């Protein structure tokens, strides 16, 4: 093979999802430095999905057709990963995707998501992240640390994540029932709803002491304030998505204290980059030093995405041959910054075994520091004991 390995990368750099792509430049710059230092010849063509699924599909086509990339990399929420993956599948271009729970990624691209018997594996698209079963396990493990009545209120919007979390077959409901929790799920609301009294009333009626859900930040703030205003104070609130980023928690003022969330990556994760040899803590520090901003979870995964790409390119030989690349991806066994990535089908239902690799997940709680900023403390690691905890789960006062 002559010439560079051409990587296409799509992420939401502008628009409402832009926070996910905040670390893109930092990661890609380091990646270019590291590969050059290692004598590797990579070219990365970055495209912005503008947080718009239509645009994501368009730029993916452009990357494939005009830029003739060899491998597609895509990250951050089903709104970006799914259109890009679909395009790659149609064009038979190898695609590696991350940062969306695997169910919305996999099931969300099936022609009939409601009918499991019709689901088909993908030929050239691969995804690594965790799944709903992991987040359920993490949440219930955290909840078990606190004395509650096991009544759970759910906030699931009608979007890719919400539908997956609330799915009666593969989502929260069956597992929670099995573990003895009673779930009150009033129904799929639309994102950017201005009033949550219906949910609050339903939760009050059910006497819910636990709140869970996968909510976008503005909606969670609206909900949380309204809950307090209307005298509803659960002991535990484990929320996906909304409180991922420190800025979002800080926006809650004091009432962000002891909210809990899933943690996919943190500076205390005991993993190293296969590319630069840096530890998680070093990468996070590097980011803060370079940008002056606090670390966020996507840093680890975007970094890992490029690690996998390098590893695959090395093993594939000729990256212009899609089949060779696909075979190389399928055979990946790599220890990355976010843990081991292997498409070996471990802990996955048969239909997803080919295309999904899982990464470890733990639970954390935001703790208010003096001066109004927050720390994310890992409070539960039963699902991944090698990741150290920093404290115990505490109820919200």
């Amino acid at each position: 093979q002559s010439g560079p390995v051409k990587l296409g990368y799509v992420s939401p750099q502008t628009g409402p999802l832009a926070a996910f792509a905040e670390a893109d430049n930092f990661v890609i710059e380091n990646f270019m430095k590291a590969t050059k230092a290692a004598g590797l010849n990579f070219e990365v063509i970055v495209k912005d999905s503008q947080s718009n699924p239509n645009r994501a599909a368009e730029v993916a086509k452009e990357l494939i057709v005009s830029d003739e990339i060899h491998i597609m990399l895509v990250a951050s929420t089903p709104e970006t990963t799914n259109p890009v993956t679909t395009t790659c599948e149609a064009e038979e271009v190898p695609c590696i995707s991350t940062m969306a729970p695997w169910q919305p990624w996999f099931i969300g691209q099936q022609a009939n998501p409601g009918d499991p018997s019709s689901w088909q594996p993908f030929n050239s698209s691969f995804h690594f992240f965790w799944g709903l079963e992991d987040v359920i396990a993490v949440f219930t493990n955290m909840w078990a640390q606190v004395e509650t009545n096991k009544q759970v209120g759910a906030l699931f919007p009608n979007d890719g994540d919400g539908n997956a979390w609330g799915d009666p077959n593969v989502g929260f409901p069956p597992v929670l029932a099995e573990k003895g929790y009673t779930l009150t799920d009033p129904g799929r609301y639309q994102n950017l709803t201005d009033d949550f009294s219906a949910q609050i009333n339903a939760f009050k009626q059910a006497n819910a002491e636990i709140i869970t859900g996968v909510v976008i930040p503005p909606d969670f703030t609206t909900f949380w304030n309204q809950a307090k205003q209307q005298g509803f104070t659960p002991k535990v609130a484990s929320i996906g998505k909304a409180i991922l980023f420190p800025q979002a928690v800080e926006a809650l003022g004091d009432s962000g204290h002891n909210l809990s969330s899933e943690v996919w990556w943190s500076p205390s994760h005991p993993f190293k980059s296969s590319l630069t040899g840096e530890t998680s803590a070093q990468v996070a520090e590097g980011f803060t030093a370079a940008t002056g901003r606090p670390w966020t979870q996507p840093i680890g995964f975007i970094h890992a995405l490029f690690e996998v790409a390098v590893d695959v390119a090395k093993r594939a030989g000729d990256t212009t041959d899609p089949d060779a690349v696909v075979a190389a991806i399928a055979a990946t066994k790599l220890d990355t910054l976010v843990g081991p990535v292997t498409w070996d089908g471990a802990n996955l239902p048969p239909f997803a075994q080919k295309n999904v690799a899982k990464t470890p997940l733990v639970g954390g709680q935001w703790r208010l520091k003096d001066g109004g900023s927050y720390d994310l403390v890992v409070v539960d690691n039963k699902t991944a004991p090698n990741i150290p905890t920093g404290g115990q789960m505490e109820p919200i006062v």
Partner: protein
Amino acid sequence: MSAGTITPWTVRTRTRAATGFAIVAIVLLAVAVAAPLFVSRGTLQDLFFILTMLVLAQNWNLLAGYAGLVSVGQQAFVGFGAYAMFACVSLWGLDPVSAILVGGIAAALLSIATGFFVFRLYGAYFAIGTWVVAEVVRLVLAQWRALGGGTGTSLPNTAIRDFPPVEWISDAFGVRSSQAADILTYWLALVLVCATTGFIYWLLRSRQGLGLAAVRDNQEAARSVGVDARRIKWIVYVAVAFATGLAGALIYVQKARISPDAAFSVIDWTAYVIFIVVIGGIGTLEGPIVGVIVFFILQKTLADFGSWYLLVLGLIGIAVMLFAPKGLWGLFSDRTGIQFFPVRRILKGGPNFDKTGTRGGPHG
């Protein structure tokens, strides 16, 4: 006074430029049909984008520029057509091309259902009303679980790959099926553009086109001279919905993935379309053509600048509206008097005429 005198009156619409243009257009069309033979796949996809946006723009132009119905809810028909196509293909196993037709018909049916409501409104009320209707359609389709609800869904790969025409093209051109699908959708888009433009031009040249202009200028007076304002508006509204639905379905055959937010995006399917029409010149058939080219160039050159791209796009929109309210085409044709699609009926013969305004051209 004039009874009995035989006056050699003639009515003329054609202009020299238009005749010249017709010849050039036929040549261009032939080149466009043959394009898959000699252009790269990237170019073909760019052309597809231009053609489908042009269809949407011409239709919106007919609605707003000629019928005075300023809708900001055309995404309803794009999305509905696309969803109908998806349902046909992935739930009921229809082939993609028939499914596109169903998409158009579904959009037309939707327009009949919503027309009863929006035609009760005027001006700005109409604009907002159409927007709300589109939102309602989006929210309702977001409840359609079989097509993924708010998550959306993807078209089964095999549906396109195993479609016989795609296989034929694939064999004939010796290309992969994904490329063959591109060629097929490109040709379909070309057909749609020609059909839409042809239909609109035919309509404007017809008696109904004159009635349409009258209704737009003054509905009350139009009804007093026997124009069935309601009927004309209905015809236009439904026809536009049909073509918009076809375009929507076609676009999503090519995208292969749908979600309510994407299919009913007011920005992608209405705001940009309005931008194209107004930049080019509303109320002319040439305007949208100019507009879509300008839009495409802007997008190509600026899209990689992130938010700066949109910022510049916004500023250009503002600037054109403020300094060239008749659009770029208006600016050009006012200077040169050139019109490619004249519809003005010019009375010739008889006594001497006031020479001002005797040019061919659009109504407006």
